[in-house]
């Protein structure tokens, strides 16, 4: 068996086990309605985690994404309020901006040989600040097209609704899977995570790949921002503080090695759903404080870090 896939199997097993526990206690949890809501409620997190997975497998980190989501919401809301642009045009403009923003961070990481942590930390402050420059208030979005998007869904068997937002997330994950596992770019991402010096010796265009990785993360953060603005019908510069950390947690729980070089896009989807499941359980229970979500996620993270360390030992002794 492929030892690198073990964390993925562990993730899937834990998710199924958790779902089983939920089902035994609340049989209603096993319905497409709950699944549909799980996808919708975690759509923006799942989308941003797709970008984060690529970044982390390459051995990097992107701390800017939470701020970029908030900036996106504000940007959309303000532009729709101030101009007569159609939302789709605003979306295109926004995605171009966030993609370029990510590409610029990737370029700095490569050209200045700076740690991604510092560069994207600067990006985090910049994006948050740019959001404040546009407005300091929560700006409601009131547009007919938004209502159409919110109402759009596909009725699954069992009356569950796969909304446009949930569908966008699933599509993003599939796109991420293709990109990571079926393109030269994806192989280069793994190569960078395995060792930058060796990757360069083997002919990987390290600079171009780094720029593309962070550009992709910026694109996904912009898309997550659009989804989040549809989900909340507003733009608020103080929104989604700390979402970058949730995304990192989802990626790690999804079985991706935080040091890079190893992981699967599908695992990230399971990681996001596991985190969502915990929240859903707490809602169903009704008596538990929502802080329990954080405690369980913390425990899960710790478990996965230990699991990865154990696997590393296993590989070394091999």
């Amino acid at each position, binding site marked *: 068996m492929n*030892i690198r896939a073990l964390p993925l199997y562990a993730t899937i097993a834990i998710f199924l086990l958790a779902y089983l526990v939920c089902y035994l206690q609340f049989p209603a949890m096993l319905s497409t309605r709950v699944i549909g809501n799980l996808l919708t409620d975690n759509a923006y997190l799942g989308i941003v985690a797709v970008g984060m997975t690529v970044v982390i497998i390459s051995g990097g980190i992107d701390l800017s994404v939470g701020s970029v989501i908030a900036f996106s919401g504000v940007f959309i809301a303000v532009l729709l309020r101030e101009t007569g642009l159609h939302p789709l045009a605003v979306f295109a403009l926004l995605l171009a901006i966030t993609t370029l923003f990510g590409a610029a961070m990737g370029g700095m990481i490569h050209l200045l040989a700076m740690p991604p942590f510092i560069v994207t930390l600067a990006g985090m402050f910049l994006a948050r600040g740019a959001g404040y420059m546009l407005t300091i208030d929560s700006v409601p979005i009131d547009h007919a097209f938004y209502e159409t998007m919110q109402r759009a869904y596909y009725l699954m068997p069992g009356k569950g609704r796969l909304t446009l937002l949930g569908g966008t997330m699933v599509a993003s994950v599939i796109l991420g899977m293709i990109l990571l596992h079926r393109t030269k770019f994806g192989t280069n991402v793994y*190569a960078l995570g395995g060792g930058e010096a060796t990757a360069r010796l083997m002919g990987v265009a390290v600079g171009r790949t780094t720029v593309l990785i962070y550009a992709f993360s910026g694109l996904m953060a912009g898309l997550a921002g659009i989804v989040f603005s549809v989900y909340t019908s507003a733009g608020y510069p103080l929104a989604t503080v700390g979402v970058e950390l949730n995304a990192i947690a989802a990626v790690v729980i999804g079985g991706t090695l935080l040091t890079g070089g190893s992981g699967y896009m599908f695992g990230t989807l399971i990681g996001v759903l596991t985190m969502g499941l915990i929240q859903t359980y707490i809602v169903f229970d009704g008596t538990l404080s929502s802080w329990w979500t954080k405690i369980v996620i913390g425990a899960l993270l710790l478990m996965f870090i230990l699991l990865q360390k154990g696997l590393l030992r296993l590989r070394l002794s091999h």
Partner: protein
Amino acid sequence: MLLSTRDLTKSFPGTLALDRVSFDLKAGEVHALLGENGAGKSTLIKCLTGAYRRDSGDILFEGEPVFPQSTLEAQAIGIGTVYQEVNLLPNLTVAENLTLGHQPTRFGMIRPRATQALAQEMLAGYGLDIDVRRPLESYSVAVQQIVAIARAVHLSGRVLILDEPTASLDAREVQMLFDVVRDLRVRGLGIIFISHFLDQVFEISDSLTILRNGRHIATHPAADVDRMQLITLMLGRELAEETAVRHRPEVTGTSADAIRFTGVGRRGRIAPFDLTVRKGEVIGMAGLLGSGRTESAEVLFGAVASDSGTVEDASGPVDLRNPRSAIAAGFAFAPEDRKTDGIIAELSVRENIILALQARQGWARPIPQAEQQRMANDYIARLDIRTPDAEKPVGLLSGGNQQKVILARWLATNPRFLILDEPTRGIDVGAHAEILRLIEDVVAQGMSILVISSELEELVAVSHRVIVVRDRQHVSELTGDDVSPDTILRAIAAPHTTLEAAE
């Protein structure tokens, strides 16, 4: 000629690493490149593969001058390299490693089956039966090494440079690798082979080129040279006409108060060996680079924990699990590469000297400033360390003085057993003599010392007995009148068969 260099010269600040080296590689031959540390082997390789830019001279590929600026360009010209540390990505699959950069695609998507088929095709003829879909790390270093060769041959296809490819392989894996190399030779590749293992060099090579101090010394067909001639060429000395005069004082200690190492060793690094260290004794250790000298010292000091055997002294077992317990037991070790393992360049002479003593005492009980000052000044005077004052950063001193600071550091802990790995490398003649004199002084006070050195005269001058290490084994021990450069050289060079009889 497939690949030649003409008067290749490369200098670094302070040293001439390559001095007008001319070298020829024919198609269909395995050409060994030999020399001790600093001989210029790796500089030559790096010039050939584009990692370094030469100062002057020509590199000719099939008679045409070439100017590789990077490994990739060298590869495009036809020169591929496989290093000791496998230069592939352990986290990717075998197939991905082989095909990285030229995966078969359709509409921008990698075709997994075609990739695997291509990988299998690249591996055909190497005698490997492995699943190319598994991560590279799930296979042994030998297999990884062959995969690296397969990639290099596929991408460059004319010249293959093997830089210490067998360093971490066992005997069976070496044969596996050599089978591959022989096949490639038949296919007409020119192969440059670098290894410290002379048996392997003689087994696989057609020609030998010896470098020393950046100069080309000799090139011979392998069949025309024997081990003795080869080692003489590498070390750059003729057999001594007469034995150097030795008048060593008698060892004061008895075997009763000795430190006895029985069967200590470490699998893959140094075969188990016995060693009895008496008080006031200097033991020399001789052998070629990579023969297991440093590995022995690391085991003796606990830097690499022994996986067998016992260590005892007069008062019972000695704990040598790690350097910390070794220091507590009164051991000290001045390693070979003082720049990376020894001095801390930014700290002052005083701070470097008290470092080991302070570490032994524990940081909770600092040595008083005045006491530090006194000790530093004492050692600066005793060892004649040339420094304006004790507060000068050690990095600013010359090599010989840095070496003396390290000696002072360990002497300050007043050890009973001091291990010196190449104590005189890279220092001038004056400092050299002073360090040898110092060794005699401390031994007279009852300290025991193990000296590892490539300089045979030096070993003969200071040692009571000399242990010869070869191919990761202690192969012989010379005592009394047998301790001479001549006998040491013979012991280093002795072919495998006679030595096994001697054991």
